[in-house]
């Protein structure tokens, strides 16, 4: 069984977001780039499944749509343990374009399971994974917090309002994964970093694909007024303010 993990290259989660050119473009000066946190957890779980002798996962690859500047992120995925990285050489203009590129690759190189993080921490589209499922006419499950393989059957947990559902489904499948899928992301070891240099990083040309949306402008949230401090000995004042001033109680 082969697992493909979709990787997005995003600013580190501590990044203070800034924009340039009249707030039309993200200002990436000084930004540290990382693997999107949910994709990193998905990769971790895929590797755990491969290491588990009880199932038949024998290959874990990562795929990404972007330019050469994102190769460092793909090398990190290889250092963590992915067998192969694929970079589709195109500008990830919107989710439809990205999903279409990955689906075009999948049509020529089938995988049994595709993992995609529930969203990317930059544009928060929450859509690439389910779009791939539709392009491929695969079954898809979103908000997945656990994945186990029992012979050829997949046992997943997905979030529902106020709880979770244990479900059974079959391959091929796109699982859109969220927190809980793995506990701790893996840190590349020195050996992993050395081995990553020898692993394949395949670069494929992008296919023709329409772009249906564009980001035209960004705003930053308004800064809040000063915090009103209340003496810890007089918490009833807070209750009064929440009722009569903020009107939230």
């Amino acid at each position, binding site marked *: 069984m082969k697992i493909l993990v979709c990787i997005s290259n995003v600013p580190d*989660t501590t990044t203070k977001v800034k924009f340039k050119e009249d707030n039309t473009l993200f200002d990436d000066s000084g930004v540290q780039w990382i693997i999107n946190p949910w994709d990193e957890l998905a990769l971790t779980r895929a590797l755990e499944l491969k290491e588990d002798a009880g199932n038949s996962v024998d290959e874990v690859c990562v795929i990404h749509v972007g330019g050469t500047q994102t190769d460092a992120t793909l090398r990190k995925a290889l250092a963590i343990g992915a067998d192969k990285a694929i970079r589709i050489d195109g500008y990830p203009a919107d*989710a439809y374009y990205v999903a279409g590129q990955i689906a075009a690759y999948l049509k020529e190189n089938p995988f049994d399971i595709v993992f995609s993080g*529930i969203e990317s921490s930059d544009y928060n589209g929450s859509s690439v994974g389910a779009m791939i499922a539709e392009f491929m006419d695969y079954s898809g499950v979103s908000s997945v*917090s656990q994945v186990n393989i029992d012979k050829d059957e997949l046992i997943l947990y997905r979030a529902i309002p*106020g709880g979770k559902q244990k479900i059974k489904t079959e391959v091929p499948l796109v699982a859109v994964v969220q927190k809980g899928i793995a506990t701790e992301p893996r840190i590349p070891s020195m050996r992993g970093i050395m081995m990553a240099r020898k692993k394949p990083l395949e670069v494929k040309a992008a296919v023709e694909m329409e772009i*249906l949306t564009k*980001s035209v402008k960004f705003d930053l949230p308004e800064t809040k007024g000063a915090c009103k401090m209340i003496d810890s000995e007089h918490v009833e004042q807070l209750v009064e303010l929440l009722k009569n001033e903020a009107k939230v109680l």
Partner: protein
Amino acid sequence: MSVIAFAKNWNGKFKNSTYELVSYTKNLADQLNTKLIVVSIGEVNNDDLKNLGKYGAERIISVNDPKMNILTSQVYAQVISEIAKMEGASAIVLSDNESGKAIAPRLSVKMKAGMASAVLELPISLNPFVVKKSTFSGKAFGHVQIDSPVKIISIAKNCFGLVENQVDVLIEEFSPHLDASLFKIQVLEEEKQTNKVDLADADIVVSAGRGMRSPDNWGVVEDLAEELGAATACSRPVSDEGWRGHEEHVGQTGKVIAPNLYFAAGISGAIQHVAGISRSKCIVAINTDPEAPIFGVADYGIIGDVMEVLPKLTEAIRNSK
């Protein structure tokens, strides 16, 4: 022409977020000078469907089939797109929740329609069609232009509120032709947290962090939450340590929430945590460290030990009722 709202039920019932969805989409349909059609999939009784009329749902197309009670995104997207094509929809609106995230992207591909998720307001402009959405996990807003003839958006919770607009409801049954092979998901078990307020729907959230010092101290958090009818939540280190479940983690990589009132108890306020709560209407911070960054984003603050302040607060709220 029409605008479609997809009303997802859970166990045959609608939630406030569905009424908000209908309120929003009714307004959008009015702006576009077209009709609102609400689509409901799965078993819902007619009285519950009629409730949607309170928020402007004049015409409801109901696929009232028990086979459809389990959310199978492939099937739902198929049904909604079939109705959308039949009714000449120019926009389809969903809630930005578990079901919306599963269905909207599939609809986008099926209908070759541009999509924007976590939309925060009615469109900024209709021609071109531009919506404002949350980006960088709440650290910024993006204006997204959708250029395709059909537009798909999913709306963030609490972005519009409930707007009453009572109309007479016309319910039409619809039976789509679906291949049995599409039903590939089998639910084995369902685990529900009973007696707990669902974090995603909560108007008030009491959240706590490492400042609680031990998972054994969570009683004071739960007491306050119970007094307020609130949901409980936590910061990332707390869920990573296993003190609380991952489903309670609020922040950039956990849940992004927008309650009316958010209590941050013993939470320092790292940038990733703030990203998950910045759309809260009112934030109260309780922390021993007066320099904690959480006070920079809070509306009200108390400097003090959570173990002493929370029980006093619970009592003060009880006394004020």
